[in-house]
């Protein structure tokens, strides 16, 4: 569905991503793990169209077309069905929960389908329903993360990319968020998950890539990497 080939990302003189290849098959959960500064966010930010200094190709087979999307603007990419839930949640604090969700549905005009997705989001996150009219900024960190995921769902994506959804959450909430990622995937959404919580990510991923200073150093099915000695030492605490 999504095929990244020879992707490079630069920030001025810094070479952050050094020609990586990633494949995200339709309907699967693929994860990208690695330490701080490995280039995980840079990779998916490049896919979302936020970065300018990039090289390579990102083929997208969805939305009834097959083309290279590298170089398209973020708004174009969202319209084609690839949405990103950014690192640090980035919900809009001065807008209500409902307005945040409606912003997620900005590209859509199909009122009925929007309502259906809204019900789905409220189903996944009952707490969002209770807090519909509350300002986003007054939610707890965990609730903000749920809102950010819900907002991404509201764009009716084919591919949903999540940047460290477990960041700063208590263990119980981490489990809840990962359960929900599983549910979203079960509804047919393809997931590209960036995580530092390697254990939780590998457990739900169909396939995983390990990124180290801009290069992919290891890849394989999630369950296999979970057993891999090198991964255990570097990312799972031995």
């Amino acid at each position, binding site marked *: 569905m999504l095929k990244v080939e020879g992707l490079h990302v630069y920030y001025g003189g810094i070479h952050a991503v050094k020609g990586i290849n990633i494949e995200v098959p339709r309907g699967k959960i693929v994860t990208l793990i690695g330490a701080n500064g490995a280039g995980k966010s840079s990779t998916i930010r490049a896919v979302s169209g936020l970065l300018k200094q990039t090289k390579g190709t990102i083929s997208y087979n969805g939305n009834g077309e097959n083309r290279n999307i590298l170089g398209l603007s973020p*708004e174009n990419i969202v319209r084609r069905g690839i949405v*990103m839930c950014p690192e640090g949640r*980035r919900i*809009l604090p*001065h807008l209500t929960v409902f*307005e945040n969700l409606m*912003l997620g549905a900005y590209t859509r005009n199909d009122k009925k389908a929007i309502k259906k997705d809204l019900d789905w989001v409220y189903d996944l996150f009952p707490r969002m329903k209770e807090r519909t009219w509350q300002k986003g900024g007054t939610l707890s960190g965990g609730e903000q993360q749920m809102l950010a995921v819900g907002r991404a769902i509201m764009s009716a994506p084919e591919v949903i990319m999540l940047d460290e959804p477990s960041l700063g959450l208590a263990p119980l909430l981490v489990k809840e968020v990962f359960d929900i990622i599983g549910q979203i995937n079960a509804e047919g959404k393809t997931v590209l998950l960036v995580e530092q919580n390697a254990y939780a990510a590998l457990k739900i991923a169909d396939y995983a890539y390990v990124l180290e200073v801009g290069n992919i150093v290891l890849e394989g099915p999630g369950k296999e990497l979970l057993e891999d000695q090198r991964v255990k030492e570097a990312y799972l605490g031995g």
Partner: protein
Amino acid sequence: MTLTMFIQHFFNALTLGSLYALIAIGYTMVYGILRLINFAHGDVFMLGAYFIFYTGTIFHLPWIVGVILAIILTSFCGVIVERAAYRPLRDAPRISALISSIGVSFFIENLAIVVFTGIPKPVVRPDWLVKIIQIRGVRILPLAIAVPIMCFVLVAGLLFIVYKTKPGLAMRAISKDIETTRLMGVSVNKIISLTFGLGSALAAAGGIMWALRYPQIQPLMGLIPGLKAFIAAVLGGIGSIQGAVVGGLLLGFIEIMIVAFFPGLSGYKDAFAFILLIVILLIKPTGLMGEKIEEKV
């Protein structure tokens, strides 16, 4: 002071205040979205007044058609200013865009002197707006009632757009986080153009009504009203539309009432606004209704 005189002053203040409010909204909207003080806004206001003048004198269009045309043309100018002078500097330090706006201001003023000539032009006003009517001994221009009503309608329309429509939602989102708003599929450039268009449309309406109130127009007429409306926006809390309305009305009332009660001070009329600006910056820099400016982490 008699009651009838007070009522006349009251309507004067309301008229002036609503005009300040209309112009102030343009400053506040652009600031809210781009953190830019658009110093060319007062000159866009002046263009509105000239457009209505020419639609009447050269093209002999009916007044109301002229009004609509002038508003559309002025919005268009506002959008062009953003495209040409601010968009290329979007990623540059904020001071660059600010300096660019001062440049645009000089450019429009001087271009206006060349094109329209510097000679003040008398504005022809529709009779029904300037035939003095008398209500229980209070002599009043219909204009003094029509202007505040028009302003009220325009502000209500603007608030509807900002708070009840999708582009309005996008505007409010951009003001806090441009990148995330783009990730939600919003074409930020379109929304910024829309913001300049709306702000300039209100300035045009302000310019047209200003020309009705003070029926002499000249290329530098935007300077002082522009500055004062900017002060009104700061007074109300720049970034807040409601604040701009409150600030504009307050400034209008202060100017008119001080002169009404202390006629000896009338020579200092233009200074009040600036004194007020200094006071508000000392006591409450965020303005009456402004929110705290939090640094983004």
